[in-house]
């Protein structure tokens, strides 16, 4: 692996760890979502420390160049992530609808009770 690429990968890895650690510190990412980002981080570290490992795996899977394997796996990972987000958004939307309905009905019931008390 050329030294320029190693430096670029190292810088992006530092930035990546910094961003993820901020999210962990401020608890803006739940633990079960954090697992995904940690796996990505481990993958980046592995590629930096043992570049031959990526090459060997890409050869094993029949890719002509390691970069092709990285590109394909990135696309699949992004697709998986988008699907997971869509699932989570739908779930949250359903929860929102339920909350709005129940809260609005409770408000109505409170109004009735207040009127009865008067």
């Amino acid at each position, binding site marked *: 692996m050329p030294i320029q690429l190693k430096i670029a990968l190292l810088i992006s890895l530092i930035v990546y760890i910094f961003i993820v650690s901020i999210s962990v510190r401020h608890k803006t990412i739940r633990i079960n979502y954090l697992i995904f980002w940690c796996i990505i981080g481990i993958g980046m570290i592995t590629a930096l420390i043992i570049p031959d490992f990526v090459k060997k795996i890409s050869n094993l899977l029949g890719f002509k160049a390691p970069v092709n394997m990285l590109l394909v796996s990135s696309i699949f990972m992004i697709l998986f992530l988008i699907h997971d987000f869509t699932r989570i958004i739908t779930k949250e939307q359903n929860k929102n609808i339920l909350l709005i309905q129940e809260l609005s*009905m409770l*408000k109505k019931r409170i109004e009735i009770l207040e009127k009865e008390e008067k």
Partner: protein
Amino acid sequence: MKIILIIPAYNEQENILNTVNKIKNSRLNIDYIVINDGSKDNTEKILQENHLNHINLINNLGIGGAVQTGYKYAYENNYDIAIQFDGDGQHDVNYVEKICKPIIDEEVDMVIGSRYLDKSESEFQSTFMRRFGSSIISIFIRLCCKKKITDPTSGFRAVNKKVIKEFAKNYPTEYPEPESTVSLLVNNYNIKEIPVSMNARCGGKSSIELFKTVDYMVKVIFAIIVDSISFKIRRKQ
């Protein structure tokens, strides 16, 4: 028999009072509940000032979420029949008795008021594009559920207690009218259509604009196919 009209209203300041007054002035012994779907105009003010029975949704949920709130209210208050009734003055209160009759006679579980069943009945037949859209949706419902529904997008429909319970728990909120019809058909509920007359909107703006018709139609057809398959799988399980 306890009957309730569920009236969803979004920005209906021009029509809502008229619609409710027509119901009150009719000789029908029925209750009503207006579901104010987070209107941005004076709908809420009108409802409060005139002491109309209503629920204010704290945020806009769309027609499906609003109507489901009505079904939840009907279920909690033990109503025998719930009728969806638009707040924009499109539906005629004189048809309420007619739409309830097959349910009172325990003939069916849901009755849909159709604009297209008997063309002489309804002067207002909506635009060509909407009629075309409706007929395409109708074909797909027939293909997926083997039942002809002439007006699958009609919001004028009555349901019995069993369906009120079902809708209070599960009600499709994206394309509610055709999707709820499919869900009932797949689960072996009986549906009947009766011809009704509908008026053009008295004022305000329709929630389905003309340019959205094609987009709506494509998404509804997709929803019908997905729903019919998933409901069938769930039923088998």
